[in-house]
């Protein structure tokens, strides 16, 4: 029963924290530009405002258009809740498999692209085609990174990997370093951040993610925005869990351990948010056709990591 409660707490936690993370990234970016910026809780207010508003649905939109936001939200939420945040070995951790998470995110993306094309506007089509271009390169890169990690840890289960990563046997490994860089690159592309996409742009012609959701409004848009926040949280949690698993509470740990886990987790998120804001401020967006080069590099890094492990298990 307590296990279920802890698992439930994790599910609620990601839901609660996701908009805050988006708010913090925006705040830090604003401060870096010498602007005051909106409050960090603004994303919550935005979601509430959108949820209360009427949802305008484009003429010619099918049932898919109306269902997709909920599917996307559900899939992303489940994926985000599976990644260990403050503790490992939770009730559902046997499902917290890296490949399952990639599959969940993949299906969310599939529905988003379909919904983008559903209305038949040119921007939806452009966004969907660009998203698919990015996805077709980001997903293999992600998988290769996963293989590298899995080869080192001997499992694709996040709890097992995290437990292995804190064990003294890990040491400094070249392959893990390559995998980390690869994963960060994939995370930037997947979350539609600069330099791949600009989440704050008003220029219809340059959008990727925003172009697909251009026709959404009201509660539908709230679901999609929420899912985008959750996805950012998911990737930061994933990077933290794989490459900085310190402080994670073990299976059946005490309340104190859980509290320590939670505090370190929040710290990690904050560091990640600041680093993301710094990186985004210091770089311009790349041309659409440079994205394959960028993600190709991520794929190669992951592949190199895997190959190194075949040369020697200790690399």
């Amino acid at each position, binding site marked *: 029963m307590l296990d279920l409660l802890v698992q439930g707490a994790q599910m609620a936690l990601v839901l609660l924290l996701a908009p805050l993370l988006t708010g913090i990234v925006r705040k830090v*970016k604003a401060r*870096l*530009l*010498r*602007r005051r910026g909106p409050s960090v809780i603004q994303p919550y207010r935005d979601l509430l405002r959108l949820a209360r508003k009427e949802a305008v649905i484009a003429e010619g939109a099918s049932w898919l258009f109306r269902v997709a936001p909920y599917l996307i939200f559900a899939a992303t939420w489940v994926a985000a809740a599976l990644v260990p945040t403050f503790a490992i070995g939770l009730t559902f951790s046997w499902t917290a498999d890296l490949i399952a998470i990639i599959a969940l995110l993949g299906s969310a993306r599939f529905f988003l692209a379909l919904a983008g094309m559903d209305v038949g506007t*040119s*921007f939806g*089509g*452009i966004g969907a085609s660009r998203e698919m271009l990015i996805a077709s390169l980001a997903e293999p890169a992600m998988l290769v990174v996963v293989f590298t990690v899995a080869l080192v840890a001997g499992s694709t289960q996040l709890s097992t990997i995290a437990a292995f990563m804190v064990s003294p046997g890990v040491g400094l490994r070249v392959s893990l370093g390559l995998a980390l860089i690869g994963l960060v690159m994939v995370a930037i592309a997947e979350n539609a951040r*600069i*330099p791949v996409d*600009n989440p*704050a*742009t*008003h*220029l*219809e*012609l*340059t959008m990727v993610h925003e172009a697909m959701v251009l026709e959404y409004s009201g509660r539908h848009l709230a679901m999609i925005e929420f899912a985008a926040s959750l996805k950012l949280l998911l990737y930061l949690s994933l990077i933290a869990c794989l490459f900085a698993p310190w402080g994670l509470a073990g299976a059946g740990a005490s309340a104190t351990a859980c509290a320590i886990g939670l505090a370190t987790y929040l710290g990690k998120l904050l560091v990640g948010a600041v680093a993301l804001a710094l990186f985004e*401020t*210091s*770089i*311009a*967006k*790349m*041309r*659409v*056709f*440079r994205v394959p080069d960028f993600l190709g590099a991520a794929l190669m890094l992951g592949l190199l990591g895997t190959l190194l492990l075949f040369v020697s298990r200790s690399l």
Partner: protein
Amino acid sequence: MTATDETGKEARMAGLSDLITGGRPIASHRPWPRVVVDEATWQAVMAQLADGNPTLLGLWGEAAGVHIALCDEAAEAIVVLSLDCADGRYPSVGAQHPPAIRPERAAQDLFGLTPIGLPDTRPWLDHGRWGLSRPLGAAAVPRDPAYAFLAAEGESLHQIPVGPVHAGIIEPGHFRFSASGETVVRLEERLGYVHKGIEGLMAGATLEQGARLAGRVSGDSTVAYALAFARAVEAALGVEVPERAHWLRALMAELERVANHLGDIGAICNDAAFSLMHAQCGILREQVLRASDTCFGHRLMRDRIIPGGVTVDLTLDGAASLRRLVAALRRRFPALIELYDNTASLQDRTVGTGVLALDRARQFGAGGFVGRASGRRFDARRSMRYPPYDRLAFEVPTLEAGDVNARIWVRIREVGQSLDLIDMILDALPAGALRLEVPAAAGEGLALVEGFRGDILVWLRLAEDGRIARCHLRDPSWFQWPLLEAAIEGNIVADFPLCNKSFNCSYSGHDL
């Protein structure tokens, strides 16, 4: 200047003047001549235009006829040719010289003048929503709002309609892309959404009203427009404003140029999602606007230039605050240039994007940074030598590359140039009166003034009672918008915002 230059100029001018000697000169037109020509001369001039010299400065209509302003750049001379068209028809200039197509379509919409042989007879400013057509012409009749875009045929081509309402807070304009995947095959613009009927309002207005209207044609160029209008009025009346007014006008014009260029440099970088430049340039622009407010009582210096002089004086405190502003900009701007130049990801976007060829820029007589980034060395301050620029030493920065990067660099250089000019003007500012009363008299005047976008042309005719009979204001964007269509061809759709912002054409000034 050498003797061969002088003879060369005379020889070139002879080509144009030979053609117009047969015409009937209008004595009251100042400072450059206006000649009423016959159809044969009109045709001959068209052939010269198509050959590339002279350059078309503007084409505008009247109920009774059509006028074109021509500029011989080498001779630095302007001439206005007029053709009476009693039956409302005239031989199209656009048939041989494409830059005239849109002005002719606009004149057709406003006055009902029919250009014979015009390849594109679709309306331009008139979207069929005015409730009447040819509002300034003889008879007004309703028109059908249907509009056919040009076709682009080929396998797997698709169309992307963008605007007129955009996601950002910008002016309305419609862009129709025909793209093959991400590559733009054709871009067609449709403008006219912010037509305010300024030329109609001008007719019958007093000079005071006219000056206010001119200052509202395009908000970011309010100083340049007011200056152009005032100079045209003063030319028509043959009055010379006090010396101090000339210098104060130039001071305001340079402040406006610096503010707009700073805003543009940041905004272009922002379109490549590099918001750091946008924020920093925004701070500098704000400093310029605040200094302008301190000195002249208005952030954009609107309604400060009037026919006869200026309305506000520069105090000693004001001069000191401008000195401080120049010093602050000189201190902080170089760091931003370095940031722009050293950010590889940003250079990757701007270098080689949206290239405009020199012969295109020459053909359309593109002014401002658009022309100068492609190597067309024309600046009305230098070429027309209006005071006080005839007594100031300055360069006209020109680059050859013609891409987005070059258009940014021309702006960067011009900011430096304008800061030097502000310093020089403050040093040499003469004392004296600010304005004189302009008499109420008839006359015709033309002025060409360098705004931040390029040369603004104002032509007007005053009636006996001193009111405006007809006034035409030509924004530099008339000859820059079509070039944007040319520059984007072969680029990718996602690079359009960057190219568009580097051109930064005016919607309001163009739509009038």
